[in-house]
């Protein structure tokens, strides 16, 4: 037996060390993590189990039940469950009652299309109380496919306290139905490339973050979103979307404070719906807007955005991103909604422009902006997201000041100057949705 001279305890097998740690009071147990890398790795041990696909729900609930935050010896936070031919589920318990279920290892080349129903209503309360002292509040479902979806559904229906659900990267998922009338507060659906239809039954949903092609969306009950992200640069995923159907969607985002929207969505879906509203429709509470656009054919067309801005009296921060890969409406459709009376934006303090083709475009946008704002906001521009310049207006009387980029348009009224900004974070944070988890699509 080769044993490091002097340090015998570290050479003990893992199970004995676990036993030792389990006998320590909590404060001392934590100290052991810092002893050396070998001790730290103890805490990363994964439980490995094998079984069939049908065993997945029981394995996960057993894993949750066994997890005891107060008992270091039962602190295995990772489970690798091997099922079927080569299916692997990686389950991780994270702080703040989060559970990750990742089926990524199970991914196939050509996933089969499937529909998925997730029910989170505690109506089927089982008679025995949940033995687990660990109540999952946040659940990540990653790379679920047609093989694992049923197992996950039955597992998820046991999580009676679930408030946050994140569904990420599920290939083959065509239709999704989520039923959680009272509990679910936050729903995130990212990168499910085949999603065509989405049905949500909920009264309480306040945050909805969506990235992917825009599905046919049916919010069965009305809920008021405070935070809505509709990043559908990939374009429409539905075949038809009746205006009357989209009205319901529009009502859910009507009171949101934070919104991410693509221009084509505004043109194709929101505008027709707006026309059907008798009264003046406004996004009264909208404070922070991220507008995603694509200046196709080299023409910068800001009409849609300007129209939209007229609907947002409370707007404080505007972020505009020009993404060359973003979907563009096939016909040069203009929004026919004529906004009647509107007040100039009093509160707009910050505008951030990213990805504009050239400085002329940025300047022309700034000029258009003049028409709708009451107070000059701070305008920051960047081409790459790293270096920012502050676009300021200078009166053309001050002609002795050097002009970095004179432009024929601006000479009419004002000149514009770009000043490099050193410390961007001082000026403004990013839009809330830009820094959400998995935002960088690094998954």
């Amino acid at each position, binding site marked *: 037996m080769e044993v490091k001279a002097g*340090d*015998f305890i*570290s050479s003990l097998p893992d199970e004995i060390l676990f036993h*030792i740690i389990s006998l320590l009071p909590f404060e001392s147990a934590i100290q052991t*993590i810092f002893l050396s890398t070998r001790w730290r790795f103890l*805490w990363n041990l994964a439980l490995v189990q094998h079984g069939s696909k049908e065993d997945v729900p029981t394995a996960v609930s057993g894993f949750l039940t066994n997890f005891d935050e107060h008992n270091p010896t039962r602190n295995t936070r990772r489970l690798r469950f091997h099922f079927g031919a080569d299916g692997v589920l990686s389950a991780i318990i994270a702080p703040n009652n989060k559970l990750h279920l990742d089926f990524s290892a199970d991914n196939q080349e050509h996933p089969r299309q499937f529909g998925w129903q997730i029910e989170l209503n505690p109506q089927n309360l089982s008679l025995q109380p949940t033995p687990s002292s660990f109540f999952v509040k946040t659940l990540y479902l990653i790379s679920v496919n047609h093989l694992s979806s049923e197992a996950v559904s039955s597992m998820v229906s046991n999580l009676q306290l679930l408030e946050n659900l994140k569904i990420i990267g599920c290939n083959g998922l065509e239709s999704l139905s989520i039923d959680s009338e009272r509990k679910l507060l936050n729903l995130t659906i990212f990168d499910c490339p085949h999603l065509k239809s989405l049905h949500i039954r909920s009264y309480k949903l306040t945050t909805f973050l969506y990235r992917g092609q825009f599905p046919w969306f049916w919010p069965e009950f009305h809920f008021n979103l405070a935070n809505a992200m509709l990043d559908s640069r990939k374009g429409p995923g539905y075949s038809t979307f009746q205006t009357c159907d989209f009205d319901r969607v529009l009502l859910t985002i009507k009171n949101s404070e934070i919104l991410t929207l693509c221009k084509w969505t505004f043109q194709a879906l929101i505008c027709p719906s707006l026309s059907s509203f008798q009264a003046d429709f406004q996004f009264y509470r909208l404070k922070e807007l991220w507008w995603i656009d694509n200046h196709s054919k080299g023409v910068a067309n800001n009409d849609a955005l300007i129209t939209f801005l007229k609907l947002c009296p409370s707007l404080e921060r505007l972020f505009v991103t020009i993404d060359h890969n973003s979907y563009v409406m096939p016909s040069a459709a203009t929004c026919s909604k004529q906004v009647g009376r509107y007040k100039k934006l009093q509160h707009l303090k910050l505008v951030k422009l990213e990805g504009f083709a050239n400085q002329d475009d940025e300047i022309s946008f700034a000029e258009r902006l003049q028409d709708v704002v009451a107070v000059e906001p701070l305008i920051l521009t960047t081409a790459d997201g790293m270096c920012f310049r502050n676009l300021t207006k200078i009166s053309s009387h001050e002609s002795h000041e050097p002009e970095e980029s004179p432009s024929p348009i601006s000479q009419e009224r004002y000149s514009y100057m770009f000043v490099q900004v050193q410390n961007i974070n001082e000026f403004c944070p990013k839009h809330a949705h830009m820094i959400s988890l998995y935002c960088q699509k690094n998954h």
Partner: protein
Amino acid sequence: MAFTWSKTIYMGLDPIFLTELSISIIIFSTIASSKKSRVSKIKTADNEIFEVEEAVATMSNTIKIMAGDCSGGVIPLNNVHSTIFARVIEWCKKHVDDGEDLEYYKGALKNCDATFFEVDQAVLYHLLTTANSLDIKPLLHQGCQRFVDMINGKTVEEIRQLLHIKNDFTNEEEDETRKKLWSSVVGMNSFILL
């Protein structure tokens, strides 16, 4: 249970009765001692043979199972050295009557064991690994308790010194571990290193 014939004559008891009594006593003591002397033969890695009472030897679940397979022959323990095995058996003899309830062993080391476990860490290491491989849970538990007493209440640096643990973290790793740990502690009740 020693019983000599001579005593009966001097007590003046009826010889026939006494004969029957003594025969049954002899039979009883024979049976008893043969039961008592059921011995397991165990051979350690260095080819030393130990004769241990079965009750003592089967405190080890491993030996119990192997005895079932060997049925009377010599049980080979290929990874236990005789010196350690001798100690283990010594402990088992002391505790053969204690019963299987682990609760009994919880808490501070019993007085009789305090000296037993005051050995240097190398011996303790071997005791624990042997208790583990022989599956003697109470011994394992008590041995661990010894380490627990050495770790409990001490700072990381003190523990390292006492147990001769080398700190192989780089500064960055150590900071990262610290940050990850403390940023995740919520009411001292949850933590994770991912």
